[in-house]
C-alpha cells in the first residue's frame, strides 16, 4: 500500500487498540469521490491515497461504474452506503443489499461502511439517516441486521456514529456504549465521524472529547471529517444548531477534536467528505493534505491536545 502509517495486521486481533476489523491497509487521508469529479479522478489520477464512494450513486449509472473500475485499478476504494438501514425494525432492504453485494464483488472495495440509523419503513425509503433510541430492543434489531449484511457481503461491515439533532428520552445506553455493544455482538468495525461527534455533542449537549474517550478504540477502522452548517435552532430560540450538510470546509474546532481522536485511536485512514456545493477537486485534496499534516503533528508530539486546555 501507499503508506506505512497504518498497517493491516490480521494477527493482532480485537484485543489490540489498533485492531483491524474490516480495516483496510490504505492509510492517510482520502476523499469522498462524487460524480462531478469522476472523470477528472479517472483521467488525471490526482495524488490522493484512496477514495470513498457512495455505491448508491453508481448502482444505477453504468458509465460511472465503468469509470470507477478504472479508478479502482489504480487506487484503493471504500464503499460508504447510505441505504442499508441497519436500524430498521423491518430489517434491511434485501434487494438493495443484493445489488450492493454484486457491485462490491465487481469493484472489490477494501471496506464497506454505513450508518447507525434507519431510512426504510414499510417499503418506503425516507432518504435520510433517522435517529434511533439506544436500548436493548434497538441493539437486538441492529445486531441482527448487521449480521445479515456481513453474511451477505462476506466481510465485516463498518458502522458510523450518526449526526444527531434529536434523541429519545428512553435511551438506556450512551451512543458510544451502544456502538461498543454492537461491535462486540457482531464483530463489525466502527467508523468514527469526528465531525458528527462534534456536531452531535453541540446539538445534544454533551462533551465531544468525553465521547471520543468512551468510543471503543479497538474497533475503529476509519475516521470521517466533513463540513457542517450553522442555522438558527427552531427548537431553542436564540441558539444555533449544526447541520451535517457536507457543504463547507472542516471547522477549526473539528480539527482539534480530530487530533484528539488520532491521539486516542492511533493512525487511521481518514476521509474528507464534501457532498453539497461541491468545490473543485483540488479543494478536497487540500483538506486531505491538512488532515495528513494534523496526523503528522499528533504523532510527532508537536500538537497540543485541545482537551487538555
Amino acid at each position, binding site marked *: 500500500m501507499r503508506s506505512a502509517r497504518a498497517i493491516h495486521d490480521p494477527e493482532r486481533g480485537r484485543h489490540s487498540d489498533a485492531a483491524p476489523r474490516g480495516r483496510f491497509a490504505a492509510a492517510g487521508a482520502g476523499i469522498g469521490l462524487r460524480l462531478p469529479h469522476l472523470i477528472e479522478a479517472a483521467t488525471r489520477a490526482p495524488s490522493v491515497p484512496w477514495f470513498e464512494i457512495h455505491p*448508491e450513486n453508481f448502482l444505477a*449509472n*453504468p458509465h460511472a461504474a465503468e469509470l470507477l473500475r478504472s479508478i479502482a485499478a489504480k487506487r484503493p476504494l471504500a464503499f460508504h452506503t447510505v441505504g442499508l438501514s441497519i436500524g430498521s425494525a423491518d430489517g434491511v432492504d434485501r434487494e438493495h443489499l443484493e445489488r450492493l453485494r454484486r457491485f462490491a464483488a465487481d469493484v472489490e472495495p477494501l471496506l464497506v461502511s454505513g450508518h447507525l440509523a434507519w431510512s426504510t419503513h414499510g*417499503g*418506503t425509503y425516507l432518504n435520510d439517516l*433517522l435517529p434511533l433510541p439506544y436500548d436493548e430492543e434497538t441493539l437486538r434489531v441492529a445486531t441482527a441486521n448487521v449480521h445479515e449484511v456481513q453474511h451477505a457481503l462476506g466481510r465485516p461491515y463498518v458502522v458510523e456514529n450518526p449526526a444527531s439533532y*434529536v*434523541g429519545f428520552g428512553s435511551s438506556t445506553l450512551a451512543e458510544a456504549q451502544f456502538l461498543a455493544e454492537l461491535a462486540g455482538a457482531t464483530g463489525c468495525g466502527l467508523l468514527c465521524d469526528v465531525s458528527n461527534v462534534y456536531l452531535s455533542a453541540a*446539538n445534544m449537549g454533551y462533551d465531544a472529547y468525553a465521547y471520543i474517550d468512551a468510543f471503543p478504540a479497538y474497533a475503529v477502522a476509519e475516521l470521517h471529517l466533513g463540513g457542517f452548517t450553522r442555522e438558527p435552532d427552531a*427548537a431553542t430560540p436564540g441558539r444555533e444548531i449544526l447541520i451535517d450538510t457536507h457543504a463547507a470546509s472542516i471547522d477549526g474546532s473539528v480539527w482539534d477534536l480530530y487530533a484528539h481522536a488520532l491521539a486516542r485511536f492511533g493512525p487511521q485512514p481518514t476521509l474528507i467528505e464534501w457532498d453539497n456545493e461541491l468545490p473543485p477537486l483540488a479543494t478536497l485534496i487540500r483538506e486531505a493534505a491538512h488532515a495528513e499534516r494534523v496526523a503528522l503533528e499528533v504523532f510527532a508530539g508537536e500538537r497540543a491536545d485541545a482537551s487538555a486546555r
Partner: protein
Amino acid sequence: MPPLAELQRDIARAVLAGDTAGLAPLLVGGTEPLARLAIHRHHYESSLTGALAQKFPAVGWLIGAEALASAAHAYVAARPPSAPCIAEYGEDFPALVAERVGGILPYLQSFAELESAVGRASIAVERAPLGWSEIASLGATALLDARLELQPGIYYTRSAWRIDELFETYLGLARPETFVLRAEPSALEVRGSRGNVAIERLADPVYELRSALAAGSTIADAAAAALERDVSFDPGRALRELVAAGLATAIVRGEPSTGGLP
C-alpha cells in the same frame, strides 16, 4: 416507549406528512425537540425535490423553476421513493408534471419523457455490436422466431409534436430567432453511451420495428407491426440497417411460431 416498529412508523409519518402526533413526549433535543424532527422532514423533501430538478432541467427551462418545484413537491408527496438509488427515482414524473401543467402545454409529457430517455441514455455503456453474419447463420425460419437484444442506451418515444426540435433549442444546438413548435408527429430514437447522446427521427415503420424489438417482440412480430404502418415496408432491409448501425448486441433463439411474415 412504544416498540421500535411503532416508533419508526410514527416518525415515518412525521417525515412524510408532518404528522408528529404522539412523538413530543418521546423526544429530547433543545427545548422543543419536535422542531428538530422537522430537520429530517426538510431534508427528505428538499433532497428529493432537488433530485427531480436535477433530473429534469429541460422541463424546468420550459415551465419555469417555480412550476417545476411545485410539481416536484406534489410528486414527492404522492410517490415517496421505495429504494435508495435516488437516480432511479421519478420514472413517472413526466405524467404528473403534465397533469399539473400540461393543460397549457399539451406536449409537456412527451417532452419530459424525452428528457428522461436522454438522461438514461447518457449514462449507458454500449456493448459490442452483433454482426450480420451471426444473424444470417440462423436461417430464415429461426430468424423470424428470434428476438434481438438492443444496446442498453436505446430508447424509443413518440410525440404528436416536434419535441426533438424543442429539445435541441433547449440544448442550444438550434438558436432560431423565433421558435415555432410544430404539431407534427415525431417517432424518436434516443441512443446514448458514455455521456454522448443522439436523437434521431425515424420513419414510422422503422420506429415500429425497432421499438417492438426493443420491447422484446420476435423479429416476425416486430416486422408485422411495421408492415401494419406501411405495406411497402422492407423488413429485411430495415433489419440489415439496424445491425449495420450497431444497434443489436445479441440474438436470442425463440420457440418456433406458426406463421411467417405477412
